[in-house]
């Protein structure tokens, strides 16, 4: 992937020369992934923002000691993960998912996009809600698999688990999503579509 080599090149420049241009480039390359990953752990956008900020401020301060880092993405994900979990453990960690009026974290701000097909929109909306209801660990797996495209072996080493465990987590996530669809197909027309939704899974 050309992206990862661009990121690696920027990281090299950043750690060896302290280049501010490279520093900004790193942010540009990875910020989308970081925000998405951050929201695997919490809906709180402010908390994720603070964590991303702190990770970047940290690597700036320690730039001269970071040239040994080989895989940049996993390194930054790990840093973000630690930051967020630390912050969460300091406050009340019991967060029951609320059907609040604010947008769920996984719903991107899509004011610029109009999804043409109503059907697709609603099904994907359901999927987003289903993902919302998953435990953090499973959301992490989904992120690493579908956003980053990592194979199970890589996911396993990042999370310090066995590859088979990672696969199990994935299939558990998908089973949960399936049952969420079944439970929530309340709308009349959804019920009509139920057979096709089930077969699609």
């Amino acid at each position, binding site marked *: 992937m050309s992206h990862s080599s661009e990121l690696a090149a920027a990281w090299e420049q950043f750690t060896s020369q302290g280049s501010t241009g490279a520093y900004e480039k790193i942010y540009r390359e990875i*910020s*989308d992934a970081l*925000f998405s990953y951050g929201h695997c752990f919490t809906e709180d956008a402010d908390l994720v*923002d603070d964590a991303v900020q702190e990770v970047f*401020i940290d690597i700036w301060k320690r730039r001269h000691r970071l040239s040994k880092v080989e895989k940049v993405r996993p390194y930054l994900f790990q840093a973000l993960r630690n930051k967020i979990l630390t912050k969460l453990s300091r406050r009340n960690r019991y967060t029951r998912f609320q059907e609040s009026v604010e947008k769920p974290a996984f719903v991107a701000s899509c004011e610029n996009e109009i999804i043409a097909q109503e059907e697709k929109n609603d099904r994907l909306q359901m999927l987003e809600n289903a993902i919302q209801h998953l435990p953090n660990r499973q959301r992490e797996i989904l992120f690493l698999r579908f956003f980053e*495209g990592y194979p199970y072996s890589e996911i396993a080493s990042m999370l310090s688990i066995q590859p088979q465990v990672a696969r199990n987590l994935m299939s558990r996530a998908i089973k949960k999503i399936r049952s969420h669809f079944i439970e929530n197909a309340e709308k009349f027309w959804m019920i009509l579509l139920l057979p096709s939704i089930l077969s699609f899974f």
Partner: protein
Amino acid sequence: MDTNRYRHYQEKDFLADDFFYKWVSSPDAASDAFWQAYLSDFPEKTEEVARARAVLLDMLSIIKKKKATPERKSRVWSHIASATIDPGVSAKPRPYRPLLSGRRRMVAGIAATLLIGLGIWTVFFSAPFETYQTAYGELKEIELSDGTIVNLNAHSSLKFKKNWRKTLVREVWLTGEAFFDVRSKAETAASFIVHTDDLDVEVTGTAFNVKSHAEQTIVVLEEGSVRLNVQKEGADTTLSLLPGQKAIYDARQMSRVELSEVETRRYSSWKEGVLIFDHILLEQAVVRLEEIYGKVIVIEREDLQKRKINVSIPIHNKEVLFETLETLFSAKVTEEQDRILIQ
């Protein structure tokens, strides 16, 4: 690889397979060939494969959707930058950092030089301005004394003081639209400021487009970094842009600056003499054309109001433009004294 390997696979097994996943997320000729071969060897698996594909594709589209808006990314970057590379904590001392901006700085500068001597004050204050202007339909390319290249669009003007000394902040005043390719003054880290009616754009070595018309100011950044300063009561804002971002400030709304991520070429193609309209409404394209040609364009046909236009046209050549519109919409374009009609 042998297709037999997947002979007993069910949907859940496909979902757990790395090679299958790779094929769905980033297919190539080799993997396509393999899975086609697999399906012809085991046609009974067609439905399982189709279902697994559908699941993966949906997951990919949901999870890959960006969670962070351009505003959010920019805002966070502003905080990061101000705690790291920007403020006075960096190792290199900056020779000049403007504390005030725009007219206030000019006033402060004048006040300072008054102390130095009237003679110098006369020279400073009455330093002649150099102005470049373009008429409707005209484009100009200007090279400034520091090597910065400015493409000035039609019906626009660029003003700057003739005596630009290297250590001072470089400032220009813009009405209309221009594309700036700013030469970075690495030695002095002197910044470059574009003043428009509503906001100032502060840059260091960068390529960007500024469009300032009656109610809106639009800045699109191609490369490098810029900082926007808006100083209006109620809307005091400073915002850093990342490349590929477009910021709009609407004076009518006087609210915060709106950010989005864009294909920057669409906004700066005019400097090559070409306008790119990429699936936008004819109404919107017409607004752009009116600004460039200076004539009101009236769309007389109702059915054209909501039509979209997807075309690149040369700016200089009105005939080609009219012909293009006539062909695209089976319309008749006539130019009158003060307006252009599309019928």
